[in-house]
């Protein structure tokens, strides 16, 4: 239903790489398994008297277990969209359904709860607490959900990203790739169904980027975690099953990749 209206909204302007037959079947699948559905979402930033339209009507549906890459030139609204998808921000207009809940209507505390439990966010600049151990950083979300076995779960999460032996290190003593792995461990701690990653490899060299992508691939493949990531690099985007191209705040095109 949402996918159909998305097609209408985009109209002839958007170049769809998806062929009609695949579109039909994915429509049915979307009804059954779409975990994220945004419908005609806009975002307007007001800076004094100047208004900036960062998003101008984005309609997108992401299935459970999908890995989607979002690409587009700088300033096209990728981060703005990710912040909305990650429940860090609210759309100015439009509707966002997450797991059947209309989150565009929720209050700050409810959004905080969703960020804590359902979504793992990975940033380009890692956003770890400095002068704090890797372990304490990974534990941080548990502090706000009164989780049990904090230590044990955090160590497990660090082990999943291959950093168990570095748990006592302060984050500023770690390399960029290690820091990003700590951030991924932190995003995994509450077993989220979705990971939102805004240029997760933007600050890393290509070899480290591949290591990080290997972790994402494994999480997506083995645990069916839905992953949406922003990237400027085609090599990184190739890991996804679908690439969404954004330009000037609207979806310009989508391409489905066959593995």
């Amino acid at each position: 239903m949402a996918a159909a209206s998305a097609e209408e909204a985009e109209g002839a302007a958007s170049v769809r790489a998806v062929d009609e037959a695949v579109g039909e079947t994915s429509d049915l699948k979307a009804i059954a398994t779409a975990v994220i559905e945004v419908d005609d979402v806009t975002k307007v930033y007001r800076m004094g008297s100047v208004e900036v339209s960062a998003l101008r009507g984005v309609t997108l549906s992401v299935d459970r277990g999908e890995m989607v890459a979002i690409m587009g030139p700088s300033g096209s609204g990728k981060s703005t969209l990710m912040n909305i998808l990650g429940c860090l921000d609210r759309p100015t207009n439009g509707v966002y359904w997450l797991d059947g809940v209309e989150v565009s209507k929720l209050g700050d505390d409810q959004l905080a709860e969703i960020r804590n439990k359902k979504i793992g966010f990975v940033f380009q600049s890692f956003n770890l607490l400095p002068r704090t151990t890797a372990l304490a950083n990974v534990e941080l979300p548990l502090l706000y959900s009164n989780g049990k076995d904090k230590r044990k779960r955090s160590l497990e999460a660090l082990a999943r990203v291959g950093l168990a032996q570095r748990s006592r290190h302060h984050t500023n003593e770690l390399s960029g790739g290690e820091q990003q792995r700590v951030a991924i461990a932190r995003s995994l701690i509450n077993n989220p169904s979705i990971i939102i990653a805004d240029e997760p490899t933007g600050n890393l060299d290509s070899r480290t980027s591949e290591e990080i992508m290997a972790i994402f691939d494994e999480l997506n493949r083995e645990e069916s975690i839905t992953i949406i990531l922003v990237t400027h690099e085609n090599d990184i985007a190739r890991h996804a099953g679908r690439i969404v191209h954004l330009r000037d705040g609207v979806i310009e095109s989508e391409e489905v990749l066959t593995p």
Partner: protein
Amino acid sequence: MNPLEALKMALRALTANKLRSALTVLGIVIGVGAVIGLMSIGRGIESAITSQIKSIGSDLVFVRPGAVSQQGVRTAQGGAVTLTLEDARAIADPNRVTVATGVAPQTNFPSPVVAGGQNAFTQIVGVTPEYFDMLSYTPADGETLSQQHVDARSRVAVLGSSVAEILFPNGDAVGQTISMRQMRFRVIGVLSSKGGGGPGNMDDFIAVPLTTLSSQLQMLRTARGEIRVQIINVKVDSSENIDIAKEQIAAVLRERHNIIGEDDFTITSLNDLIAAFTQVTQIMSIFLGSIAGISLLVGGIGIMNIMLVSVTERIREIGIRKAVGAKRRDILAQFLFESMVLSLSGGVLGIALGWLMSKGFSSFRGPTGQTTPVMITPDIIILAVSVAAGIGLFFGIYPASRAAKLDPIQALRYE
């Protein structure tokens, strides 16, 4: 977020900036220390003076001529001398005033006194033998007045210790002669000192038989020749019966003086004096306390200042916490805990400082060699701690709510 975690977090944040935290705490330490120190000194002085008053006897009531109306002084106390020795005898009747155990009428008359080469200006106090016992005067030398002296209107005198020192520096007062108002009196005793100097000196008087004094001075008798008295001291069997005594004495005097309206006498007890005095010392305590309170306020502003700085420095941290699910109240609690830990640790250290201050004060000796006791009572400590906690809360709430209100995206983008 559970409180233990919040406390750990606050301690970690505060120890990350040890010097800054210590200086902030110092403001509260000084404030709380000043409150505790000054209040305990105030309490100490109050209790010292109260106990001195009580040492005279809290079981005494004093009847004076003249009335005080409720609107203020109507007739000055003692202005119209309307009490007589007969009134005192009536009060002494155990069937009328059942709770009285002793009655001592008294007349004061200021006069110069000469003895040998020395002279002094003092109170001549006309009394009966009961006086000494009732006001706890004991002879250091010789004896006090007897009933015979009173009945015979003997010209004998008992000297208060300070008068004795002035008139007889050699200490050989007993048996000597003193003269006042052209009358000569033989000294039969010297009283031991009650202590305390200055205007409240209770050893600066000469006691003579009431009858002797009033027979010599026309003004101390009524037109009908009755002996006037200025104070009737009444000892009551126990301090709980003070009010009963006051009523019974008033009943006797109203009947004797045929009073229908306003009384022409006033009955006071030491409790009234203590109450009046307590009021004065309480005002003093409040005054000292509010001076100390101002320094506490300054300390609180210091906390607020540091918390605002701390929030600004940690905007990115707040953004990260919010991004991983911290709610407003979590951030609020985090910063409130920090300001509370600052102010409460300041409070605890301040109690120690106040205690040291009052110890120092109490070991300081006054001009007469006496030390001033100080009292740190639990209520002062409870007050100081709750004020410190209140300050942490009050001055912490604004910075904390500023932190809590931050938008996660903007906080994350903050450099």
